[in-house]
C-alpha cells in the first residue's frame, strides 16, 4: 500500500534528513519506526502527509505517486490518513464529541452520519461518558484517546502515530498501545514512530530502524535494538 523508492530528503542548509530510503508496506501491517532523535522518523511521516516534498525519489500511497499530487489535492490525500501526535492537538474550545465530529464535518459528512458514527468511535476508544468534556478536563491518556478517535472517525486506510505515547506515563502508554493494536486488528495499517523500547520489544511487530537518515534494519517481529 505504501512504497518509498530511493527517497532522499535534504532540508535547507544541507541537512540530510533521509538518504535513499526504500521500503514497502502492505495493507494491514503494523510498523514501528525507531531511531535516535534526529534520525529522520518525523521526516518520513511528513513526506507521507505531503507536509514536505522529497528532494528525490518517489512515494506511492495506494498505487498513486503522491509526489505528483498537486497542492490542491493534498486535503483529499490526508482524508485517507489518520494522524496522531505526541501533543494530541485537540481544539481546546470544542468538547470531545465536537473534536471528533469536526473531522467528519470538514469532509462534508451530513449530520445523520455524524450522529451515528461519532458515538460508535467514542465507545471504541472508551470515552462514551466523556463526550461533553473539554480537553482541559481530560487526562493525557484520555486526550490521546480523543485524538485517536478523531484519526479513526473517517475510516482511514492508514493511521500514522508520531510518538503517541511520548507524553504519557508508562501505564497510560500501555493502554494507548493496546488501543492502537486493536485498531490494527480491525485491519487498519499503522505506522508508529516511537522511542518506547519496552513497547516495541513486547509487541513483536515489524521494526524499521533509522540511523542518520538511513535504514539500518527492517525486520518482522523485530526489537528496538541498540542503534536507536
Amino acid at each position, binding site marked *: 500500500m505504501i512504497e518509498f523508492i530511493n527517497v532522499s530528503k535534504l532540508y535547507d542548509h544541507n541537512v540530510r534528513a533521509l538518504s535513499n530510503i526504500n521500503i514497502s508496506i502492505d495493507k494491514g501491517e503494523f510498523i514501528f519506526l525507531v531511531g535516535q532523535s534526529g534520525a529522520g522518523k518525523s521526516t518520513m511521516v511528513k513526506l507521507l*502527509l505531503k*507536509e514536505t516534498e522529497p528532494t528525490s525519489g518517489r512515494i506511492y500511497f495506494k498505487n498513486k505517486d503522491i509526489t505528483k499530487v498537486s497542492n*490542491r489535492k493534498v*486535503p*483529499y*490525500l*490526508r*482524508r485517507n490518513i489518520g*494522524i496522531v501526535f505526541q501533543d494530541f*492537538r*485537540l*481544539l481546546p*474550545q470544542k468538547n470531545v464529541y465536537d473534536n471528533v465530529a*469536526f*473531522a467528519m*464535518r*470538514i*469532509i*462534508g459528512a*451530513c*449530520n445523520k452520519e455524524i450522529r451515528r458514527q461519532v458515538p460508535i468511535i467514542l465507545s471504541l476508544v472508551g470515552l462514551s461518558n466523556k463526550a461533553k468534556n473539554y480537553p482541559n478536563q481530560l487526562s493525557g491518556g484520555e486526550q490521546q484517546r480523543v485524538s485517536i478517535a*478523531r484519526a479513526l472517525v*473517517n475510516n482511514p486506510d492508514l493511521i500514522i502515530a508520531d510518538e503517541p505515547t511520548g507524553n504519557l506515563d508508562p501505564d497510560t502508554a500501555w493502554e494507548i498501545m493496546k488501543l492502537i493494536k486493536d485498531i490494527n486488528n480491525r485491519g487498519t495499517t499503522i505506522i508508529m514512530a516511537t522511542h518506547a523500547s519496552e513497547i516495541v520489544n513486547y509487541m513483536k511487530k515489524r521494526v524499521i530502524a533509522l540511523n542518520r537518515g538511513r535504514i539500518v534494519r527492517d525486520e518482522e517481529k523485530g526489537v528496538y535494538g541498540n542503534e536507536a
Partner: protein
Amino acid sequence: MVMKLRSGVHIIKQGFVSIWKNRMMSFASVSSVTAALMILGIVLILILNINNIASITKSQFGEVIVYLENDLEKEEINAIGQTINQTDGVLSSIFQSKEQALVLMEEYLGNETHLLADIEENPFPNSYIIQLKDIKYADDVVNKVTGLIGIDEVRYLKDVLDQLMIITHFVRLGGLIVIGVLIIIAVFIISNTIKITVAARKREINIMKYVGATDGFIRGSFVIEGMLLGLIGAVLSIAAVYYGYKYLFNIIKEELYVLFTIYLIPYSQILNDVVIMFIAIGVGIGVIGSVLSIRKFLRV
C-alpha cells in the same frame, strides 16, 4: 441542496460559537468596525446636511430678479420676457406685475396693511423673476439681461451664493477625503485584529489542515466569521448613528428653533441612507480583513 443548506446553517452557527469563544478578539474587531462606521456616519450626516442647506438656500437665492422701467408698453414688456426666456441658462421666468407685487406685499404685511395706507401710487415696479438652470449661468444671464433696453435694475445675491458654493465645495471634498481615509484605517484595523485572531488560532488551522480540510473550507469559516463581525459592527453603528442623530434633531427642534429643522435632513431619511451602506461597508471590511489576514496561515 438540503444538505448544503444545513451545512451552511452549521457554518454560520459555528461562526457565532467561534466569535463567542474568542470574545476578547471579537470585541476588539467589532469595536473598531463600529467606531469607524460611527465616525463615518457623523461625517456623512454633516455632509448630507450641508448639501441640503446648500440646495435649499440655492433655490432661495438662485433667482435673478429683473425690475423693469416704469413706463413700458405691454408689447415692450412681453418682448423683454421673450428675450429673457431665450437667454442661455434660463430655466423659466415669471412675470410679476406692479399689482401682483403690491398684493404680495399686503399679504406679507397682514395686519399691518395700514403702513401702506398713505401711499397713493403703487411704488412697486413690474418685474421678471428668473429661475436659472444652474447657478453657474448666473453671471452670463445677469450680464445679458442688464444690457437690455427697458431694464431698471437686475438683482442677484451673487456674493452670498459664491461664498456658499465655495464652502459646500470644500466641505464635500473634505468629507470625501475623511471618509476615504476612515475606510482605509478601518480595513487596516480589522485586518490586523483578524490577523491576531488568526495567529491565535494558527493551531486550529493547523489541525484543520491535518484532518484534511481544504483551504476553501478554512478560509470560508474565517470569512464567515469576519462577515458576522462586520455585520454586528454595522448594526451597532447604525443604531448609534440613528439614535444619536434623532436625539440631536429633537433637541434642535425643541430647544433651539423649530424653523431651523427644515434645513436638516429628517432622521428617518438618514436611516434609509445609512442602513444598506453601513451593512455593505461593515461586511466588506470583515471579508477583506479576513481574506487578507488568513492568506499566509494557509501554507502548512
